[in-house]
């Protein structure tokens, strides 16, 4: 196998094109090395993008937060810009795997691996991110969350010819907030039994719009469309948040997992997680509500 330590995006894309379908981009490598060891993925050329300075950057550009595809989860979790605008994302990236994993792994990798309960992929999903995809000799293209996920463990990226260059997230307005919650057996080295992320805009305690994503209840982060539509225009109070939690089940198809909970258990707890995610948003936006029941 040939291993290319690329120093620029141009060099990386050139090496990927030169490999003629037998190359793969490696960043954190915490999933890819295991998949290669197990024979699930093979490559004649690995193109390492961890030493490309602009792919490590986390910056504000216009009204967007830009996270380079090679920024590690630790770098994202501790970045002051991410903390300032999207504390929910720092919660998501900060609970993946273990510290050793987070010191190598990337948010982009967490998305590209496309596991339905991935903490990072889930936390970023409702933030309306654009994934910027680069390919040799072509204009960059942008995929949104829905376009990104193509099946269980699959994304729409052609890994032999394309790579994610960066993630661009619109900055929140003053009346917008996001949240991330997970249900877990243990904090380190475990995928969550369930996770929910949300983002909403509210005026005078009334929901203007809301995006709710949840997993593992389908392919990638699944939108709770029924709950979102129902909650728009309503007060962000306890009863409505709880009802939105119940309605989330209309879009969720959880399966039983011997380690991470039965379908029945997940169906019983998902509404509570959705309600908690909405409560967190209400708290951040200063919306006061009385707990009931």
């Amino acid at each position, binding site marked *: *196998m*040939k*291993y290319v*330590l690329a120093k620029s995006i141009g060099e990386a894309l050139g090496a990927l094109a030169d490999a003629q379908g037998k190359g793969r981009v*490696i960043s954190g*490598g*915490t999933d890819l*090395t*295991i998949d290669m*060891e197990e024979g699930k993925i093979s490559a004649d050329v*690995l193109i*390492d993008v*961890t*030493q490309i300075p602009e792919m490590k950057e986390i910056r504000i550009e216009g009204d967007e937060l830009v996270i380079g595809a090679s920024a590690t989860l*630790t770098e994202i979790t501790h970045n002051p810009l991410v903390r300032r605008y999207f504390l929910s994302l720092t919660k998501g990236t900060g609970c993946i*795997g*273990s*510290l*050793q*994993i987070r*010191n*190598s792994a990337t948010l982009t990798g967490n998305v590209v691996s496309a596991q339905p309960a991935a903490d990072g992929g889930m936390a970023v999903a409702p933030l309306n991110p654009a994934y910027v995809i680069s390919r040799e000799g072509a204009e960059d293209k942008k995929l949104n969350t829905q376009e990104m996920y193509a099946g269980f463990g699959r994304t729409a990226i052609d890994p032999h010819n394309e790579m994610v260059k960066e993630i661009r997230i619109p900055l929140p307005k003053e009346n917008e907030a996001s949240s991330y919650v997970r249900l877990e057996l243990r*904090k*380190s*080295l475990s995928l969550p039994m369930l996770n929910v992320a949300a983002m909403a805009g509210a005026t005078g305690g009334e929901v203007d719009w809301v995006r709710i994503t949840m997993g593992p209840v389908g392919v990638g982060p699944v939108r709770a469309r029924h709950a979102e539509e129902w909650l728009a225009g309503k007060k962000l109070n306890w009863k409505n948040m709880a009802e939105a939690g119940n309605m989330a089940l209309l879009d969720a198809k959880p399966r039983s997992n011997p380690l991470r909970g039965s379908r029945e258990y997940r169906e019983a707890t998902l509404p509570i997680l959705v309600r908690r995610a909405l409560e967190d948003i209400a708290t951040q936006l200063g919306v006061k509500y009385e707990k009931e029941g």
Partner: protein
Amino acid sequence: MREKISFTLNGVFMETDVDPDVRLADFLRDELHLIGTKIGCKRGECGACTVIFNGKAVTSCLVPVMRADGAVIETIEGLAEGDKLHPIQEEFINHGAVQCGFCTPGMIMSAKALLDENPNPTPTEVCEALGGNICRCTGYKKIQEAVLAAAERMRKGW
């Protein structure tokens, strides 16, 4: 085809040629014979292979050896100075934080990475830093106590 790389290992600059297919953990053990770095799961889930890579604790079983080019790497072998053990090593012994010992090098390297960045960690911060290191025999309480004791000693100078 073997490739030439250079890196700093335990304070010593080295140039060598490597097989690009190999992971850092295997390279350290099989080619440099630094067998203090253990290999448990080879999936990044047990922490036995933890080394400090450019100042950060990483599971070396998941690091392609080519990425070591230009890196500064610390392994358990670099901690003691001659016969004098590092305070973290001494406190692991003093607190009975070692039983079979297989996880110990990884635990100690995670602890060192923590104390290099944060000389005065809380018990919770120790748990977070060592959360990726699995021990099947000692239990974690003595390990946590050993790290906190080492931190206290190191703050006083050693």
